[in-house]
């Protein structure tokens, strides 16, 4: 069983929600990121999401944009981030998921990325600008190395889109709580429960509500 499936299995049996903190890797530098990941792990995170910086993060708000710009200014690359995960694995046992835009992964090479990420100890990848419709090549590489590809659904998603995502998703479903870019919200909108119910009717996978906050399901 994958680390992700094991964590959600345990959470379900304890009737507990997942706490999934997010940090941009390399902001302000890799050593600090390693310390943050270790601290999140020892403070009880259930799963750790690590952001790969990109020059043009179209789904991110100003806080994450600035973090990505700082990391890029520090010269952090995708290879560096895989190295960070490899180091963190000495004492971090929670699942680690990378959140990256598609182009850095595409230029790294899809097969190379999936292979090296898995051997470094990455459990899954979330790619905000890669809808399932464009994911065939990545899915093939991810399947053969055992990497989960986690797709997003949004309040705007029609049942056709929910089907397109749930047919291909693995790990869990990332449910975007609002239309909008990333950033912490005060509260969840009312229609989110309905969306989660619509998704759960179509897939046995866990559903996480995110983009700033994580809640039960």
């Amino acid at each position, binding site marked *: 069983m994958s680390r992700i499936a094991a964590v959600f299995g345990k959470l379900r049996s304890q009737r507990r929600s997942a706490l999934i903190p997010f940090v941009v890797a390399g902001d302000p530098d890799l050593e600090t990121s390693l310390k943050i990941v270790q601290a999140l792990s020892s403070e009880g995170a259930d799963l750790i999401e690590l952001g790969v910086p990109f020059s043009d993060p*179209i789904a991110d708000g100003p806080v994450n944009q600035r973090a990505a710009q700082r990391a890029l200014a520090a010269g952090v690359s995708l290879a560096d981030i895989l190295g960070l995960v490899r180091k963190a694995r000495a004492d971090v046992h929670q699942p680690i998921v990378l959140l990256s835009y598609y182009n850095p992964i595409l*230029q*790294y090479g899809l097969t190379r990325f999936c292979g090296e990420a898995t051997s470094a100890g990455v459990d899954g990848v979330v790619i905000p600008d890669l809808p399932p419709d464009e994911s065939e090549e990545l899915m093939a590489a991810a399947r053969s190395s055992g990497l989960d590809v986690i797709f997003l659904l949004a309040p705007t998603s029609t049942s056709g889109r929910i089907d397109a995502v749930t047919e291909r998703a693995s790990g869990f479903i990332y449910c975007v709580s609002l239309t909008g870019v990333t950033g912490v919200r005060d509260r969840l909108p009312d229609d989110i429960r309905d969306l989660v119910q619509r998704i759960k009717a179509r897939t046995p996978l866990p559903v996480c509500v995110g983009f700033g906050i994580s809640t039960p399901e």
Partner: protein
Amino acid sequence: MTTVRVRQVQQKGRFGKYGGRYVPETLMPALEELETAYERYGADQEFQAELSDYLEQYCGRPTPLYHARRLTDTLGGARVYIKREDLLHTGAHKINNTLGQVLLAHRMGKRRVIAETGAGQHGVATATAAAMFGLECAVYMGTEDMARQELNVFRMRLLGASVIPVESGTKTLKDAINEAMRDWVTNVRTTFYVIGSVVGPHPYPSMVRDLQSIIGREARAQFLHETGRLPDCLVACVGGGSNAMGLFYPFKDDAGVRMVGVEAGGHGISSGQHAATLVAGAPGVLHGAYSYLLQDSGGQVHATHSVSAGLDYPGVGPEHSYFKDSGRAEYFSVTDQEALEGFRLLARTEGIIPALEPAHAIAYLRILAPTFRADQSIILGLSGRGDKDVQHASRLLAP
């Protein structure tokens, strides 16, 4: 009578391996809705008649195809004809596209349109169409571009649009598109995103190409009518590539017609400070499409440079990438300095002050025209007029 026809989009918005739809899931339903609406109204005679009427009565189509005799004599070689998109309402070809998209937004019941702009021409054209249809309009523009295109910022505000300064990243067109996409992700239910070039996720590259193809359809018919044959070559500048695609596309099956796109070489390709995506880039994903891209080996998008804000963009329309790989079109670049010489050349030989964007195509004509015989012809796509650039150019050009 002018008409805009819609061609069937093959293979889900792919041009060979290029194109596609690489966007956040939040936008997928909006793109599906847009595709459906575009297919419906593209085939709707009433919609097409209304658009044609606006293009004629409001924008001034058809634009002339002008035989530039003094430019021809100065260059030596091919006879040069100029397709005068600079004479259109608002001063550039951009209005062909924005009128079509804003009319579509209106039919879809959207009350708000947004746009990105580099040189400001697309922003002005969107604000113009929005004013005419009474829609709310917001235009995203990098602060560096706002400084070099002050006049267009004023025009947009005068037309009732709000111009939203973009401070992130390189503060130019690329970041204005990022910001417009963030707005669209947030306000997708009420807002129509009017993209200004043949870039972005499907169906934009096909839709913008179809709306701009009026340039090439007119030019082809006008040239045939005047000479009884087809031209030997077409030349146009390429930033995102909408005016070049609009001119090229109706000729794409005319095998004897060469197509030449001219990109912004900035301070020179070897300087690394340029925007010559097809000349010097490699395929990658930006702003929703797989296409040539100026990027580093890690897939981070490069900052670009061009004297012309409208060409200062690290991506290019996916169909141009397809034309490059298939050899159907050729792409070259000229430097800022050469473009400024082209700017002055057209002013002095023909009494036409071009925008700095097509000044790149004029500059390349100096190399291209002498390679043809005097009985051969080239059509130059003059995408816009130079009023917006006069102030900027006056600081760069010795009189």
